Each structure stands twice: as C-alpha cells, then as structure tokens.
C-alpha cells in the first residue's frame, strides 16, 4: 500500500462568476522514501491539490471530492480534530514564501517548540532541545544563540531553513514542499535541496515537491506529475518524462527552458496563456495552445492512458505514438550536446 494515494481528486471553488474547477480529477500515489515532483504553471492546480490533501482550503465555497488515502485513512472525510493531529506530525508542509510563513512576533524557538508540544506531551526543556537539534541539522550557524532570535533577524535562506526545521521536527512520514526554493538564490537552493535529500534518506520520509523548475525535478524527483489546467497531462518515472516525454505540453515546457549547458538561438515558446478554469476549453484543455491540434482534440477530452504497455508512464493526448516518438526525439536531439558540456 502506498503511503499516500490520491484518487480522482477534485476541488471546486464557487465564486461570484461561477465555479472554478481548480483541481479536476487528479490521481497519483507516493511511497515511503520516494520523491514525487509536481510541475505546472501558476494556476494549474498544483498547490490547491496539496492544500486539499492537507485540509487547508477555506471551508466556505470549497467542494472537495475524491479520495486522499494516507496510510489507508481518507483525509478528505477526516474530522478537523483528526486533521490537526495529522498536520505537522505525520504530514508536514513547507510553504513557498519564507518571508510571510513565520510569525513575526514570536522567536523562532517559540514557534519550533510549539510544533513539538502540540503533538507530544513532553517537558518544554526537552522540546527546546529538540528544536535546537533541528536548527543545527538544517545548518543554522550558532544555533544556541539564534534560537531566541525573531524571524526578521534571519535572511531568506535562513528563514526557509527554519521552516524546514519546523516541518521536520516531528519526523513526518510525508513532507509536502510547495516551491520551497523559488524565492531563493541558486546557491541557497542547492543547500536546501541537499538538506531535504539528506533528511529524506535519514528518516525514509516521502516527499511531494511542487515546483515549476524542471531542473529541480530532474535533480530530486523519482516520479513526476505534469499538471495543466487542473488536470494531469502526463505522469511517470523521472527518466521516462525526461527521456521520452509524450505530451505536447511537456515538450513545450522543456523547449521553453533556457539552458545553462548549451547556446540556444531561440526558445521554443508555448503560444498564448493558460486557460481560465471558470470556462476551460472543450475537449483537450491544451488544444488552443497546442501546435499539433487535430479535430478530435477540440471535441474529446483525452483519457490518461498508459504509454505502450508501460503502466507507470501515463499521458493524456490524442496524437499517435509514432508522431510522439518522433517529436520527443527531435526535441531531445536539440539538447544532445549537453552531455559533454555539463559540469
């Protein structure tokens, strides 16, 4: 049994203009010790998916359907009290913005200790020792002194480390990281990713990494879910997604990425804007931006189907297999010089 199994998850928000289907039938699973990467543009529903799993959407105006089985227990139907037990203990979340996710009027020590004492009946002294241990683990220099500092006394990278320390303080089985490095410099990003990998290895936790950076995905993920307009466009093991991508949107994402290791004359860009989720396009939601669009794409929404007989690699596109193999090979051929140039 996977640690977390999400089945046909749907999250709808009712707004003044109508119902926004922010997540519309998303399924995936994560095993212990595994890292799942979720990629997609802003508004593709990747953050809402995770907030729904955590039960953190505002209850007014929100409808959630489907199942999110964590160790067999459905989080969507769990009571608020039960969710409070799980959050921060069994499942922890690292938010994107380290500047606004910490409480400015309490010291980081107080906030870390609170995270421990909420879930464990331990003396404050012990909780403080645990907080200190975590701050040291995430590489905060002079942690004995900094534990009594306020968040504003830390830099962005340091605050993100505090957030990670807080998420890991109860050794969660599942860590959800929502763009944990987007606001950071590359050097700090490298430190944080190395840290998440190390802690994952130490505790055999599962990680869900939400990002729009395919580079981060290539570095850290075992499995990848590519989301577009509230749906899964493609998912599969990381080497399949990067070696043999099967969805035009995945091709677009890869082609539009400027590369460190090769000179490119012109980026292949995806035309247009992501669609409004109030009134998503009929048929395949990617069809208005897809260079390979056919008549069937405008009418029939493609099912998520296995690629060949590989049941781990799924894609939702009407194009025939031959065209996909050819286009994927052409796209990857453009990067073929990379192997020699990359450090």
């Amino acid at each position: 049994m996977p640690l977390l199994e999400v089945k046909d998850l749907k999250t709808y928000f009712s707004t003044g203009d109508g119902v926004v289907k922010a997540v519309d039938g998303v399924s995936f699973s994560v095993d212990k010790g595994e890292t799942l990467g979720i990629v997609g543009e802003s508004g593709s529903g990747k953050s809402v998916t995770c907030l729904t799993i955590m039960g953190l959407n505002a209850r007014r105006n929100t409808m959630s359907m489907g199942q999110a089985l964590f160790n067999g227990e459905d989080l969507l139907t769990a009571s608020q009290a039960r969710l409070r037990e799980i959050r921060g203990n069994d499942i922890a979340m690292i938010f994107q913005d380290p500047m606004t996710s910490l409480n400015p009027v309490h010291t980081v020590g107080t906030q870390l200790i609170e995270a421990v004492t909420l879930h464990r009946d331990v003396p404050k002294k012990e909780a403080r020792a645990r907080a200190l241990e975590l701050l040291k683990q995430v590489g905060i220099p002079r942690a004995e002194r900094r534990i009594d500092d306020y968040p504003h006394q830390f830099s962005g990278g340091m605050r993100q480390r505090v957030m990670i320390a807080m998420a890991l303080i109860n050794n969660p089985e599942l860590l959800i990281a929502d763009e944990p490095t987007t606001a950071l410099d590359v050097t700090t990003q490298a430190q944080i990713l190395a840290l998440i990998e190390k802690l994952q290895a130490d505790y055999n936790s599962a990680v869900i990494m939400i990002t729009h950076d395919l580079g981060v995905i290539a570095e850290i993920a075992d499995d990848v879910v590519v989301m577009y307009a509230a749906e899964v466009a493609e998912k599969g093991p990381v080497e399949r997604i990067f070696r043999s991508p099967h969805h035009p949107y995945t091709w677009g994402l890869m082609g539009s990425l400027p590369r460190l290791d090769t000179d490119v004359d012109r980026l292949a860009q995806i035309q247009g804007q992501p669609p409004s989720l109030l009134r998503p396009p009929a048929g395949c939601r990617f069809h208005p931006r897809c260079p390979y669009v056919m008549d069937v794409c405008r009418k029939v929404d493609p099912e998520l189907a296995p690629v060949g007989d590989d049941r781990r690699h799924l894609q939702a596109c009407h194009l025939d297999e031959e065209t996909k193999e050819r286009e994927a090979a052409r796209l990857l051929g453009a990067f073929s010089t990379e192997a020699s140039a990359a450090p």
Partner: protein
Amino acid sequence: MTTAQTEPAAGLDLRGDELLVVEDLKKHFPVTRGIIFQKQVAAVQAVDGVSFALREGETLGVVGESGCGKSTMARCILKLLEPTSGRILYRGRDLTHLSRAEMRPYRREMMMIFQDPYASLNARKRVGFIVAEALEVHKMGTPAEVKRRVQELLEVVGLNPEHYNRFPHEFSGGQRQRIGIARALAVNPKLIVCDEPVSALDVSVQAQILNLLKDLQRDFNLTYVFIAHDLNVVRYISDRVLVMYLGQIVESAARTDLYEDPKHPYTGALLSAVPVPDPDVEARRKRIVLEGDVPSPINPPSACRFHTRCPRFVEGHCDVEPPELVPRAGTPPDHAVRCHYPLERWPLTEQEMRRATPAGPAAA
C-alpha cells in the same frame, strides 16, 4: 557645458564607439546613528568600484546573489540614484553630475523594465495612459498621434491594441510585463536596463518575453543591460556577462567563455548550483556547495571579498592582498577575473577545486 569628449577611462580597453561606459562606479549608503544629530557610523558598500563598457546592440548580462548590488548598479546607471563616486559616460558624455533638467534629454534614450509586473504599473491608470505617459512627458506628438503610437506599441509587444482602455488588473503577469516593455519602448530608447524582467513569470511565459526582448533588440537595435539571478536566462540573452559579488565584479567574459570555462571559484559555484533539467546529467554532476550566506556589505571581508566562502582560500594571501580584475594566463584578453587562484579548467572535481595554484596575469 559642452558635449566635450572625455578622456578614455582607466583600466578599460575602449574603442571609442561605446554606447555606455561605467567607470569605477561606487554607491555607498550611509548608516547613521542618533535622531537629531545623525552621525554616520558606517556605510553599506552596495556598489564598490564597478567598471564596464557596452557597445550599441549588445546585451550585457549581470548575475549575482541577492544583495550583491546588481539593482543598485542599474539604478545608478540611470541616475535614479546618485552615485557616490565614479563616472557614467553615455555616448562619450559624462552624465554623472548633470542636473535633472540637463538629464532630461538623456532620459528618453535610457529606459528601464522592472522586475515585478504587479507593482510597477499604476493600478488606477488605464494601459493607454501608462504607455503614453513618457510620450507626453517628452512632448512627442499630438493626442491623436500618441494614441496611434500606443496602439502600435501594444501590437509590437504582442497585445491586442483594442485593450488600450483596460486596467492593469485585467491582464495576466506575462501580459503586464509586455505592458512594461511597451512603456519602455514608447520613446524609442537606445538603452534599456532590464532588472530581473522575467523572474516573476512562469517558464512558458518567460520564454515568450525573452523571445520578444530578442526580437525587439534585432528590430530596433536596442542595447540591454540585463540583470538576473537565473544563470540559464542570462546565457540565453547575453553577449557578455558580469558576475558580481558584494558590490564588485568578480568575473567578466564573453557569454560562452564564462559558461564553458569559468575562472572564478564563485562563478564555478554558481554554475554548479543550477539544476540542469536532465536526470542523467544531474546524477553525474558534482555540486560545489558554498557554505553560509553572503557577508554584510557594511563590513565586507578584507582583501578578496569572497575569501570567507571560497573553497580555494589561502590564508595569508587571499585575506591580505586584494586581487585585481585582470585577464589571466590562458584566457582571452576580454576575460577578466578577480582571483589569485583561478580555476585551471572546467568542470573540476571537488579535490581539484580545493587545490589552489597561483596564477599571474596573462603575459600578453
């Protein structure tokens, strides 16, 4: 004051046809103590001795971590901040000490594109007004001409000219950045300073904006100073790249030289920290992880400012004798490095990275 040609700058190899020359630019912000009698107790050395030259039609990329002084430098070039010392020459004319009125004709030729497309457009003005404002300030054309020009500009940047009367909130992030670009283009500038123009955008929109900037450069012969912390983006758009650390240039080279053969350990660390979207390459790569954060620019480390984080630090040399920004043995003459122990080759293993061997300036 006449537009006398000023004598060539020290330390820069100039050909005389540069559009922009920056010489030993410094910007120090005072740190004061006391309420009434404010006494200066220290200075934030945000930019500390930056020199470079830029020819027409070129793109100069500037990279560095946050707090390295890239944005302060950009604001100094446009005289949005008064430099503490140094000179800014535009077409050979010294702009450094011009008054606001004297500066005005030059403002038309130097424009800026800002980082945050949500904060840099006035939410209460219509798009037409935002783009037309510069035209009106510089009294370029009758109202009818201005309107035609604005619609033309919206079309150039890939927006619907009929959206002239909409407000910024009706546009997405990428479209807003296009409005910012249309505004910068309105008065036919020669030089555009782009301060992280794509870092707030999604990758697919980022590619659209980068391609647009490249097309505009080709069509209008624009010169860009392109500031970014994303090294991938800088490689795509730049002809030359400056790497900044704590207010100083640590390496300056043509794009391909910098990315294929970096010499400064800091550049090497930056390049190795960028994740490459390819799991096989990622598995083979060795990362040089820098310890700690950028030191405070109020009290920068002595001599080489990078020595506190450098894997090649040699005690008694790097922290005593400041390195010069000069070409080194085996590099092209326009590849300058501020390091006593530049990298011998690239990529390096971790052991090689730590083995420092001194290298003198290039003999030629």
